[in-house]
């Protein structure tokens, strides 16, 4: 596939006029050569989303575009890909110049005889071709930019002379057999799931294409134009149709949609601060907890493997919410989602509470709903940490073990935590508390009081102002209040494994619940 050799060509010199472009950009109308060269000159960089050398060129040249623009040189990346793919790719790679797309059959690429991507073409103010570099060739590009600088009477920044200095490009679609181009330019080369990847309508896994018919079925008569609000950070509008499109992409059945819509409303509540959660370097995702009769009605699993794979309703509802954040909200990892590591729950994280097996009132009742209502509750949450305890014979011992498992939640010495830690209590553990007559509040209070350390032992590395302000011997609790401990019951009947999910910290995020209607 790689065939461009990374070479400088001056064939454009000698007064050849640059062909008109006729490419689409992000603004209205077509981009014209006159517009591009109005400041003094233009650098056209023909690229393809699929080509690693194009990615290299965009990464290396992208950060320089703004400074060039101030000197009068307008840089434009001309993609052989759909405009939305072009915009996303440019953003991901840090390209700060203009972005355009050359639609099939690639008239601009053909007019400029682009056989290889990337190909960089310098055009002067008078619209005259000044030089071309094919592939990635740092010395040749530096020379080309030197020429541009002379043209403009300004010194222009050049890409750093770091390895690789040269790298062959890839075949431009315009240079390939027209039938092959048609196949490549069609929907994913005729492969619909591949087209979804090409469009960027994915979280990295294959999706169900959101055809109008499927979205219509998902909406089931609801008004697709209804707006649920703006999804941060990109502030895309969450129309019900877009939420339904995300549900289709995720693989939801239409019966799940009321839960997805309720979860969407919940995460968009400003009190949840999705904005902060979506862009943070923290790993946190959005945990969706479902209570009430809808669990049974749509087959949500609250039993064996409640936090794991195997159940379509759990996996696809959580995934639909995350796709809404990532696609409509623009929070894709590497773009506006800046999570250092993330966690697998960010693909989708939906748990149903085992209300029938619980000795306590379920979460939604604690939060003021009737037991007969179906409710979605969203919580900013870290990945689960499993807590094995097959040996405790008293509720005190078990509560102690559970609580201390969370001692390193968020960070080892970050005490106290104001935000919620979610404990998922397995049925066998719950049974011990039931047999002992422990209420939920008693367990929560015990856990709150059990996990304390002298401030002096916590003054190492990342810690809190509370720890710094306390006397060395003063006991600091792990949580700021018992209310920061959330208790759910779920899991298989056998096995004494509960789990704790650490919080999303420092965001001012509150737990939000919405009724499923």
């Amino acid at each position, binding site marked *: 596939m790689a065939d461009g050799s990374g070479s400088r060509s001056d064939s454009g010199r000698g007064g050849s006029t640059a062909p008109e472009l006729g490419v689409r950009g*992000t*603004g209205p109308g077509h981009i014209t050569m006159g517009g591009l060269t109005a400041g003094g000159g233009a650098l056209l960089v023909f690229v393809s989303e699929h080509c690693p050398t194009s990615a290299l060129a965009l990464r290396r040249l992208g950060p320089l575009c*703004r400074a060039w623009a101030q000197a009068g040189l307008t840089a434009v990346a001309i993609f052989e890909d759909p405009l*939305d793919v072009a915009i996303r790719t440019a953003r991901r790679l840090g390209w700060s110049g203009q972005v355009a797309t050359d639609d099939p059959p690639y008239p601009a690429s053909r007019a400029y005889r682009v056989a290889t991507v990337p190909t960089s073409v310098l055009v002067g103010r008078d619209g005259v071709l000044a030089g071309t570099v094919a592939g990635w060739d740092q010395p040749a590009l530096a020379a080309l930019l030197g020429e541009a600088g002379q043209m403009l009477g300004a010194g222009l920044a050049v890409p750093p002379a770091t390895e690789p200095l040269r790298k062959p490009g890839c075949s431009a679609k315009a240079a390939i057999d027209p039938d092959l181009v048609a196949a490549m330019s*069609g*929907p994913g080369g005729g492969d619909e799931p591949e*087209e979804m990847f090409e*469009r*960027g*309508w994915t979280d990295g896994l294959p999706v169900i*294409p*959101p*055809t*109008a018919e499927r*979205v219509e079925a998902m909406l089931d008569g609801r008004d*697709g134009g209804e707006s649920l609000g703006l999804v941060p950070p*990109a*502030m*895309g*509008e969450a129309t019900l*149709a*877009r939420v*339904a*499109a*995300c549900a*289709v*992409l995720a693989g939801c059945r239409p019966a799940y949609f009321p839960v997805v819509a309720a979860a969407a409303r919940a995460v968009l509540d400003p009190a949840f*601060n999705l*904005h*902060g*959660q979506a862009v*943070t370097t923290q790993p946190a995702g959005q945990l969706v907890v479902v209570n009430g009769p809808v669990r049974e009605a749509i087959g949500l699993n609250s039993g064996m493997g409640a936090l794991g794979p195997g159940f379509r309703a759990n996996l696809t509802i959580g995934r639909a919410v995350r*796709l*809404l954040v990532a*696609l*409509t909200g623009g929070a894709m990892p590497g773009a506006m989602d800046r999570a250092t590591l993330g966690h697998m729950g960010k693909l989708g994280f939906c748990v149903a509470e085992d209300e029938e097996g619980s000795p306590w009132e379920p979460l939604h009742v604690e939060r003021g709903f009737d037991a007969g209502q179906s409710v979605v509750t969203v919580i900013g949450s870290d990945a689960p940490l499993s807590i094995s305890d097959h040996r405790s014979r008293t509720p005190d011992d078990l509560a102690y073990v559970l609580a201390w498992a969370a001692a390193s939640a968020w960070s080892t010495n970050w005490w106290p935590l104001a935000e919620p830690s979610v404990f998922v209590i397995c049925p066998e553990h719950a049974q011990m508390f039931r047999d002992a007559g422990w209420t939920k509040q008693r367990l929560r209070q015990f856990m709150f009081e059990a996990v304390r350390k002298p401030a002096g032992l916590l003054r190492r590395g990342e810690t809190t102002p509370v720890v710094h302000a306390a006397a060395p011997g003063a006991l600091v609790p792990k949580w700021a209040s018992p209310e920061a401990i959330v208790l759910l019951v779920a899991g298989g009947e056998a096995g004494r494994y509960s789990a704790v999910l650490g919080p999303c910290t*420092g*965001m*001012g995020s509150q737990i939000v619940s919405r009724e499923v209607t």
Partner: protein
Amino acid sequence: MAADYVSPFDERVRAVEPLAPRPVSVPGRHAVLLDIRKNRGAEFLDRMETLFQAAGVNTARVTKEIFSKPAALGLIDEIASGAGLVVEALAD
């Protein structure tokens, strides 16, 4: 084929806001120092304030509600209407 799909993206194209011109010199200008309330951001702003004042720049300090949320519109208006320069302190 494209018309058969419902896009999850908000496809509206927004105009790119150009960067404001960078100042050639700062003496005599008014600078707002925005503390976003992240750890140690204030220390950075303290240093900036000292340097600015030594360079003849008038300074004022403003603070966001919390670092993880966009600034309130009222605060943005206050900064936009009163400042020639803005320095926003990041953190950690």
